[in-house]
């Protein structure tokens, strides 16, 4: 009679699980052997192996863990010890999980070390130090580019009231064509909502500030309504960078031009 059962009553489902896990761990062990043999690692788990490879202690630990897993797996096949199977299985799983965890985190820690040991490049290129009013200077650079290609500042600074619609129209074409070219080099823009304006839409719950509601707004969403403006968002920004700026000075939006004869 067994009054004390070290081995909990196994149902067929649990047994199948154990078998499945055993198979899994067996292949895991095999995988580790292959991994450490240095033969199949390129194909199998190259990045993982690479992380281990860089750190000698980690590699040793991984090896020991691998051997332990193998032993635990082997023990499961010894009939006389089958009562301890559940411990072997959980032990092996714990070790395996630990290994996986280490592998994942190892990817981060040694990276910093790796960067530290990389020999200094022959001519390291540091981004130029930012001047004090760098942010303003970069905004001016964007404006300069709109002025250069699309005469935007000329357009804004001229007195529009003196001219006929035909003249304004001609100038607007210059501005539109040039600014559009400059603008599309700097920004890739797409509509927020893909539906046609005027269509009934339901605002996505996680839309955040990408949508703005007006009218009578209920307490909780999702909100539905008519799309009045499809909205715009920048999917890519590629702004000119200022090389150097004197502290306290801003670059010209458009330089004064002189024709030398």
């Amino acid at each position, binding site marked *: 009679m067994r009054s004390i059962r070290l081995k909990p009553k196994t149902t067929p489902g649990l047994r199948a699980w154990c078998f499945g896990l055993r198979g899994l761990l067996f292949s895991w062990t095999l995988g580790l052997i292959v991994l450490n043999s240095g033969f199949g690692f390129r194909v199998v788990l190259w990045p993982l192996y690479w992380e281990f490879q860089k750190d000698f202690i980690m590699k040793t630990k991984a090896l020991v863990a691998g051997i332990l897993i193998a032993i635990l797996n082997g023990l499961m096949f010894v009939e006389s010890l089958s009562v301890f199977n559940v411990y072997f299985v959980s032990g092996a799983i714990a070790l395996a999980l630990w290994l996986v965890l280490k592998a994942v985190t190892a990817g981060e820690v040694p990276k910093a070390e790796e960067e530290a040991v990389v020999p200094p490049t022959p001519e390291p290129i540091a981004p*130029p130090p930012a001047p004090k009013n760098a942010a303003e200077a970069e905004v001016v650079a964007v404006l300069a580019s709109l002025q250069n290609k699309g005469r935007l500042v000329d357009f804004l600074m001229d007195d*529009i009231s003196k001219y006929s619609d035909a003249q304004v129209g001609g100038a607007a*074409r210059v501005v539109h064509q040039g600014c559009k070219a400059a603008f599309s080099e700097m920004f890739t823009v797409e509509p927020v909502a893909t539906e046609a304006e005027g269509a009934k839409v339901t605002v996505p719950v996680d839309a955040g500030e990408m949508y703005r509601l007006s009218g009578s707004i209920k307490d909780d969403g999702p909100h539905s309504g008519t799309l009045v403006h499809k909205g715009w968002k920048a999917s890519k920004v*590629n702004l000119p960078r200022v*090389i150097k*700026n004197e502290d306290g000075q801003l670059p010209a939006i458009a330089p004064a031009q002189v024709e030398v004869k």
Partner: protein
Amino acid sequence: MEKKFVLGIDLGTSNSAVTLCNLESGESRTVDVTQILAPNQIGERSSLPSALYLPNGDEFSVEAIKLPWDEGGSRVVGIFAREHGAQVPDRLVTSAKSWLSNPHVDPQSAVLPWNSEIESGKLSAVEASRLYLEHIKQGVLYAARMEGREWNLDEAQIVLTVPASFDEVARKLTSDAALAAGLPEPVLLEEPQAAFYAWTDRVGSEWRKQVQAGDVILVCDVGGGTADFSLIAVSEQDGNLAVERISVGEHILLGGDNMDLALAYTLQAQLEDEGTEIDDWQFLALIHTASQAKAKLFEDAGLSELPIAIPSRGSSLFAGTVSTVLARETLEGVVIDGFFALTGADEMPEEEGGAALQEFGLPYASDAVVSKHLARFLARSLQNVKTSESLSALIGDQASALEGSLLKPTAVLFNGGVFKADAIRARVLELLASWCGDAPRELEGFQPDLAVSKGAASYGRNRVTGQGIRIRAGSARSYYLGLESSRPAVPGFKPPIKAVCVVPQGMEEGSSHLLEGRSFGLVTGKRAVFRFFASEIRSGDKPGDLVNKADKVLEETSKLEITLPPMDEFPEGQPIPVVLNSVVTELGNLELWMQHVDSEQKWKVEFQVRME
């Protein structure tokens, strides 16, 4: 050293681009090149205009035009160079690539900007090319560094594209410029071939379904400044499809820039008819605006006209802007009927004549009709294929292709910015249909601006991994050494020149040939000079074949020179018997050596820079 990445570099006449293929990850993408956008402004663009500006001493401060990787101050390459230089032509170098193959001016002498009055800082076409390549190299390394990656160029497979029409001298100069720019072992690839590689890469394994054995593919590449044609034949070998480049065109300086210019002149005349005069600055703006309006009209077939507005240079935009209209009729008249006229199969481009005092600059095409240049190319291709049994056999299963006056392509692959316009592609297909009976089908290209650099990267990858397709190409031309015929001198009468074939067309990379039975006696310490000829239409010639009247039937490309160093084994003044050994290196460069008849000792023959 093991190759870890490929750089496919399209060193263009007007724009350059570079694609990096990482061989470890398999990822391939165009590198955005950092460049000066305006004084004190830098940024990245997918292409680098092949333009170089030479600022005068105090025009810009050193910092204002300094790139992250250089000292700055002396030169500007890229967008700002082109934009600003357009208004200061004396200080702007453009089309350096065309100067590399200019038969009139030494590409190594510092003559650019051409016709400029600046006193210092002029440079040669080779040096300008080196600077563009140097900029591209640094741009790639910088972009990688910004992403935390350090590339070692010794681990790079460099592929540099050149026009198929470049002769050996221009190819070697390009290769030299790349070496001087610090790009090791550059492999040269013809641009139309690169476009084909880009196409196969894009359609993937489908390409074997889109073309069949017996197909003759015309690669029609019209870029900003040049038109470049090639024919590629598809055949079946051991159950697989094999592709071979069977013909290349001549160097034609005619491209999209000519079309924009023609359109701008037309609009200027139109403005004058309306009573408006424009100045030089406005004319530059007009070229630019006309080019954009052209693209827009071609893109949107529903538009019948587009307004054109040209600002004046002063700050008053409303008062100074002049307006006119570009009508679709005008556009089609100038671009489609002007450059792609429906000419006959036997209409050849007009040779320059008439004007006795021709300006001594770049040899621009004197006939602007691309159709006629295409007809000439196809006629010469037919002539070339007919001289060789092996080439004829490639297209033998459709004998009709060889009938008539020109070789009939069965498919067309378009490349170059000009062919972004559907209407122009349609017109070329219509033209070919009128010559061939059947319209060839179009192989759908992609991103005609960047395809060449992408294709170069694909080729480099195939070359390193040994996988994927390879176009059988070899030497695009056959080469000949001039021989003086021994006959009594007659005053006022030049003896005819005979030439012996030393490199057959299609001679493959990594092969060499010893010209048996014809030895030369060279005296040590004394310079020996030979005349050197080439032809792209004599594929049948074998090494050792003699060609009579070489100066008439062949093209003289360069002179060759060799000076044997004084040597102990040979007494001074005694001629050393040598034979010519021609080698096409693994990198695709042609080398000529003189080899001592009785030993393995050999000396390299140098190309002398060609001069008329």
